[in-house]
């Protein structure tokens, strides 16, 4: 199958998945978690909402609140209707308010009421992620990812992220920068549909090995080459019921690479071998479409103890229009949690895998840090470490940096230390043991076993009012120049 065909199939599949999800959206409405009107609208005197008055919203537009309310002037119901209670949680779900109080006042005539909504606003700037660490090839890197979830009170999120990495000592290395800005709206006019637009730019200095044993992470074994990326992507999403969401997106990107002429590596036996840097020299372009599916049945997404989560993501790039790369990328992740022996012990299984077919640029291939948490992952697209994997099973995983086929299977056990309603909501100790693999499609052979290694992790997770903290062995290993 040619890649052009693969691209076409990818596009068709993405569109089918998207429209299939729309079908699900209408056949599995949000009411699956809320009582139906027949069940709840049966208690108290009948009322008619004459008007809705909102107070306390100094920065949030009243329209944003009215959009999420399932109630409006003219609606008739019983005063004990659960629709009224659900309305409070709809407003709270916006995440813009610390407190939402609903009450009623008499209207202009018997049976008519004024619905009063008093809100207390909260800070809506969210710190999504912190980036920091140091390694042998990067003296330090730092950055953060922020989102204002209620920009100018419109209910639209505006976010941005940046990472700065100091120039390292590898030959040809320079400082690295990555920046991203995005605008997102998860519920366009309170519908099931959302959208996101993002622009990004990177100045990368990618380290690559030109000598030394695979487990030798010394700086003299590495050089670096530069490339720049500037791009934009757009995503449409649709909520399929309460538990799933489907995404359909597109991306345009320009890449400018300054590759060394004929890069060679001195192999351990002293011979020379060519290095494929997996980028086109000079200016190239990337044009792709993508589709993703996210189904999440966990009761608590932060410290899960039950339910499962499935993530599917595919992306197809083509040179049909203006692109320089043709590839098809498929990634999947499935996680499942079980409570055992009461609600203190939780075991979970985590599987993820990916396959990249065709000539993807290196940054779209699977990086070892994507699978093995014990080495540094990419920070906003930048590779900041060249520290090899520990190769605990001595199966040559220390040679792996990028691949086209990879996977991780991990089992975790967590012990619930406490749950509280105070500012630390909960904490748990966990240990995890897994196996991961990464290979290039050229290396995959039925006669040879793939390079596999252990993933070992243990630590503490805390769910607090200001965020989620994970203090773990793998997290520390990924940030220290070991």
């Amino acid at each position, binding site marked *: 199958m040619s890649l052009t065909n693969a691209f076409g199939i990818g596009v068709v599949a993405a569109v089918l998945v998207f429209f299939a999800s729309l079908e699900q959206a209408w056949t599995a409405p949000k009411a699956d978690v809320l009582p139906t009107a027949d069940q709840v609208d049966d208690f108290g005197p009948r009322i008619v909402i004459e008007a809705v008055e909102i107070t306390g919203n100094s920065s949030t537009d009243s329209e944003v609140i009215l959009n999420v309310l399932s109630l409006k002037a003219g609606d008739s119901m019983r005063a004990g209707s659960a629709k009224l209670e659900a309305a409070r949680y709809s407003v709270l*779900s916006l995440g813009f308010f610390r407190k939402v109080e609903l009450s009623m006042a008499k209207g202009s005539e018997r049976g008519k009421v004024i619905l009063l909504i008093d809100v207390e606003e909260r800070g809506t700037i969210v710190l999504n992620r912190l980036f920091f660490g140091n390694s042998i090839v990067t003296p330090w890197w730092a950055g953060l990812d922020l989102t204002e979830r209620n920009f100018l009170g419109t209910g639209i999120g505006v976010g941005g992220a940046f990472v700065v990495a100091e120039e390292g000592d590898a030959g040809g290395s320079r400082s690295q920068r990555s920046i991203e800005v995005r605008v997102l709206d998860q519920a366009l006019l309170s519908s099931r549909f959302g959208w996101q637009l993002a622009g990004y730019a990177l100045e990368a200095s990618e380290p690559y090995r030109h000598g030394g044993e695979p487990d030798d992470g010394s700086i003299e074994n590495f050089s670096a080459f530069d490339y720049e990326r500037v791009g934009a992507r757009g995503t449409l999403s649709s909520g399929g019921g309460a538990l799933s969401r489907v995404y359909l997106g597109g991306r345009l990107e320009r890449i400018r690479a300054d590759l060394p002429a004929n890069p060679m590596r001195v192999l351990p036996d002293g011979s020379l071998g060519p290095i494929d840097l997996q980028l086109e020299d000079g200016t190239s372009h990337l044009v792709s479409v993508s589709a993703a599916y996210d189904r999440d049945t966990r009761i608590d997404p932060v410290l899960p103890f039950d339910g499962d989560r499935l993530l599917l993501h595919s992306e197809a790039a083509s040179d049909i229009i203006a692109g320089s790369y043709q590839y098809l990328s498929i990634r999947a992740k499935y996680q499942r949690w079980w409570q055992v022996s009461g609600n203190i012990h939780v075991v979970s299984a985590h599987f993820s895998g990916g396959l990249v077919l065709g000539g993807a640029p290196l940054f779209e291939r699977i990086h070892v840090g994507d699978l093995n948490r014990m080495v540094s992952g990419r920070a906003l697209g930048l590779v900041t470490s060249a520290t090899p994997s520990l190769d605990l099973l001595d199966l040559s995983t220390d040679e792996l940096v990028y691949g086209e086929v990879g996977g991780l299977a991990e089992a975790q056990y967590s012990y619930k230390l406490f749950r509280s309603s105070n500012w630390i909501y909960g904490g748990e100790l966990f240990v995890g043991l897994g196996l991961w693999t990464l290979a290039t499609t050229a290396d995959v052979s039925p006669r040879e076993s793939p390079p596999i290694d252990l993933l070992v992790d243990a630590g503490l997770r805390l769910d607090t009012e200001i965020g989620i903290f994970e203090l773990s062995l793998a997290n520390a290993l990924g940030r220290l120049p070991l």
Partner: protein
Amino acid sequence: MLALTFATAVFLGAIGSAQAKGPKTRKMRFVERGRSLTVNTNFTELLDSENFTALSSGFPMRIVLHLLVYQDGYDTPVAVQRMRKRVVYDLWDETYLLEETGPGGTREIRFGSRVQLLRRLTQLRRHPIAKLEDVGIGPHYFLVIVAQLNPVEDAELAEMRRWLSKSSSESKLNSSSSFFGSFVSVFANPKLAKAERVVRLRSQPFYRVKQ
């Protein structure tokens, strides 16, 4: 090292705080009536002055009660009962309408006084908690009461938490590096409580004698 010290202090503080929470012990009165074991007790702390005022807001209020009888030394209750109380204020008649749903069915009661309503909402009088045949003669038992004010269903709560935790990070699906990566991040975490207020009470041990 500072970060580690801070984390340890936070952790120990949290455990201490969490351990301080648990069912309060309350002296309750148990009486055998007919073929049932009944209880007299109250849980007035479920409603504070703000909630008391809110009874007249016209907005519905809901209380869910779970009554669990345990034999001492066992984790599984010998009897479980769930009750729901809903109350709404009629703005024009200036009366309170209470609906109680329990094992005996559903009934509606109208109150002219908010104090009378409060008493009915937060007291149990001669309330059956178990069949006598489920509570053997001799062993020690105790009653646990969990009273929740305006509780949220698990599925609804999960949906809201998912919504809040994801709405700022939709872009993560576009990044291959974070697609595989574990959930290691720091972000503002607007938690929603499972109920506005919860009271957990545990009775003194009691036992039946042969009559």
